[in-house]
C-alpha cells in the first residue's frame, strides 16, 4: 500500500468497535475507534482521515448529526453510515446528507471490503487528478506566461537556460503577446531577481523626454530640470532594464544607447561623472526590425548588439491550443480579483473564442474574459456575456443563421458610424431605402448608451 489509509470508527458498542477494528487492521489499514460523535470531532484534526465509519444510532449525537458537523469542517471527507435497523428513510436521509454509502450491520464481508476499497480508490483518483493538474500547470507555465504550444515551450526552455547569463535579449512579437511578461520572467529566473525590474516604454515619450528618462539629468542641465534626477539606467542597477517599443526610438537615441551598451557606462545629462552600468538589458518591439534596418530607420549595429539572444513570440492565432488554458487561467485570476466564483465558459463560448483571430492576442482575450465575468449573471460565461468585434470574428460563431449574421453586421456598422444612415448604407453597399427596411425588419433601435466597441 503506497499511502497509509486512516479509518475512524465511531460506534457506541464496544464489541462493534473491536470487531471492526481487528478486521480492518488485517487489511493493513490504520484504524482508530471512538465511542461517540463528540470524541470523533475531537480526533478529527489529528490526522488526514481517509474514511469515517459512523454508527447511525448513538446517544448524545447521532450519526446524521455527526455527518453534518464533519461536513462543516471537512466537506470532502468520505463517510459511511452503519446501522442495525435498515429503513429506506434513514438510508435516503444519510445519502442526502452527503454520506458516501450506507451499510447494514452485520455486513456481508463482501460489502464491507468493496465499500472500503471503492472509497480508497475514489480518494486516490481525486488526489492523483489534483496532483496531475498541478504538474501539468507547472509544466505549461513560466511565471505569468502560460502555454502548451511547442514554440512557446521552446521559448520557456530558452529563457530558463539563458536567464542566468547577462546577455542582452531582444523579444519580438505582436502587441499583447506578453513581451513584458516574458521580460519579467527572464528577470525572475536570473540571479538578479532580488534587484529591481525597471521598465520604460520608449514609444510613448518624445526624444528629449526619453533621453532624460533613460540617462537622468543633473540639476539645471536644461529648462525645467530643477532637481537632480536619476535615469532608468541607473535605477536598474543590480537588476533588469526592460526597454519596450525599442523600434520606435530616434536614430540619435539609438546611437546613444549603442554607446552605452558597448562601453557599459554613461553620464547623466549635464553631468560629468561616468556611471558604470550593472543592469541586464531586455528590449522588445512589435516592429519588424530587419525591415526597419532596410528602410534606414533602425541602426543595424544596435540591432546586433541587442539581438544577442533573440526571442520571437508567436501570435495567439498561431497557438490556438492555448486558448482553453488561458481562459481557465484568466477565469481563476479574475475570480480572485473580482471576488466571483465562475466555473468557466460554455461550449458555445469556447467555440467563439477558438474561431476568433485575436488581433490583440492574449491581452485582448484577458480583457474579454474580465468583461464577461463582470457582466455574467450565472456561474458560467455564456455567449451573451462575450463581446467580440463582429468584423474580426473570422468564420463567425458556430451555429448562427445567415439572418443573425446579417442583423449583427448591420447593427455593428450602424453603431460604428453613429447611426449615420448615408455612410452606413455606403459601407454596406445598399441604398438608404433598403437599409431602412432592414432596420425595420430586424427591429434595430438606436441605443444612446451604446458605444463603439473596441
Amino acid at each position, binding site marked *: *500500500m503506497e499511502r497509509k489509509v486512516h479509518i475512524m470508527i465511531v460506534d457506541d458498542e464496544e464489541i462493534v468497535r473491536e*470487531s471492526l477494528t481487528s*478486521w480492518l*487492521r488485517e487489511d493493513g489499514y490504520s484504524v482508530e475507534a471512538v465511542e461517540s460523535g463528540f470524541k470523533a470531532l475531537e480526533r478529527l484534526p489529528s490526522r488526514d482521515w481517509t474514511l469515517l465509519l459512523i454508527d447511525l444510532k448513538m446517544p448524545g449525537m447521532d450519526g446524521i448529526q455527526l455527518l453534518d458537523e464533519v461536513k462543516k469542517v471537512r466537506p470532502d471527507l468520505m463517510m459511511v453510515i452503519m446501522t442495525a435497523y435498515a429503513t429506506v428513510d434513514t438510508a435516503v436521509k444519510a445519502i442526502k446528507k452527503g454520506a458516501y454509502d450506507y451499510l447494514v*450491520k*452485520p455486513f456481508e*464481508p463482501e460489502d464491507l*471490503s468493496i465499500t472500503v476499497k471503492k472509497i480508497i480508490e475514489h480518494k486516490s483518483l481525486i488526489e492523483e487528478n489534483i496532483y496531475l493538474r498541478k504538474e501539468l500547470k507547472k509544466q505549461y507555465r513560466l511565471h505569468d506566461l502560460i502555454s502548451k504550444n511547442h514554440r512557446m515551450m521552446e521559448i520557456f526552455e530558452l529563457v530558463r537556460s539563458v536567464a542566468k547569463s547577462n546577455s542582452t535579449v531582444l523579444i519580438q512579437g505582436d502587441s499583447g503577446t506578453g513581451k513584458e511578461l516574458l521580460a519579467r520572467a527572464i528577470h525572475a529566473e536570473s540571479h538578479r531577481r532580488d534587484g529591481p525590474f525597471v521598465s520604460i516604454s520608449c514609444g510613448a515619450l518624445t526624444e528629449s523626454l526619453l533621453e532624460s528618462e533613460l540617462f537622468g539629468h543633473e540639476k539645471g542641465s536644461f529648462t525645467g530640470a530643477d532637481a537632480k534626477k536619476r535615469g532608468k539606467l541607473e535605477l536598474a542597477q543590480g537588476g533588469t532594464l526592460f526597454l519596450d517599443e525599442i523600434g520606435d526610438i530616434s536614430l540619435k537615441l539609438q546611437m546613444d544607447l549603442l554607446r552605452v551598451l558597448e562601453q557599459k557606462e554613461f553620464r547623466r545629462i549635464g553631468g560629468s561623472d561616468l556611471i558604470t552600468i550593472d543592469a541586464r538589458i531586455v528590449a522588445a518591439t512589435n516592429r519588424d526590425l530587419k525591415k526597419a534596418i532596410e528602410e534606414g530607420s533602425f541602426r543595424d549595429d544596435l540591432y546586433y548588439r541587442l539581438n544577442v539572444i533573440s526571442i520571437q513570440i508567436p501570435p495567439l492565432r498561431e497557438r490556438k491550443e492555448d486558448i482553453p488554458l488561458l481562459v481557465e487561467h484568466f477565469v481563476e485570476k479574475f475570480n480572485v480579483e473580482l471576488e466571483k466564483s465562475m466555473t468557466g465558459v460554455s461550449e458555445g463560448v469556447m467555440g467563439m473564442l477558438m474561431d476568433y483571430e485575436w488581433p490583440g492576442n492574449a491581452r485582448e482575450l484577458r480583457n474579454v474574459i474580465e468583461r464577461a465575468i463582470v457582466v455574467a449573471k450565472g456561474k458560467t460565461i455564456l455567449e451573451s456575456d462575450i463581446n467580440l468585434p463582429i468584423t474580426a470574428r473570422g468564420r463567425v460563431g458556430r451555429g448562427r443563421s445567415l439572418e443573425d449574421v446579417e442583423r449583427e453586421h448591420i447593427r455593428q456598422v450602424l453603431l460604428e458610424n453613429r447611426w449615420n444612415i448615408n455612410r452606413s448604407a455606403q459601407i454596406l453597399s445598399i441604398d438608404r431605402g433598403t437599409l431602412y427596411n432592414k432596420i425595420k425588419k430586424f427591429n434595430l433601435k438606436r441605443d444612446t448608451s451604446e458605444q463603439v466597441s473596441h
Partner: protein
Amino acid sequence: MMTASPDCFEEKRKQYNSTKILGEMLREIPTDALKVLGIIDSDISIPILTFVFGEAQLGGQAAIVSLTRLRQEFYGMEPNRHIFLDRLRKESFHELGHTFGLYHCAEDACVMRLSSTIFDVDRKGSTFCRDCYLAMFSKMQEGG
C-alpha cells in the same frame, strides 16, 4: 480436541462467535506454544460481519478456520474432497499468516489476498507471494 462453550454461541444468529472461541483457545493452550490453529465444523462470525471463513489474532498466537462454508454442499453442490481440502489449506495458511503479522496482500495469486466470498478463496493461490513469504520469514527470525 476441545469444545467451544455455549457462551460462544450466538443464539440469534445460529453461529459461533469466532472472537470468543479464540479467547477460550488462548486459555487452554500452553503458553510456550508458537502458534495454534483451531478448526471448527460450525459456521462462525464476528459481531460486525454475517460470517467469516476464519479469524486470527494479528501478530498473535491463535487462529481459527471454519469448515462449514468451505464445503461444496454449503452452496448446493456435490461434495468434492479435493476442492474442500484445497480451500482448507488456503484459509489455514491465510489465518496463520495473520498470526505472523501479515496483512492482506494485493497479489492475485497470494494466499494472503482477502477472500470475502468462496469465489475469492478459489481464485487465489495456495502459497505466499515472495513479499509475504519474506515478511513472514523475518517475523519468525524475530521469534514472532
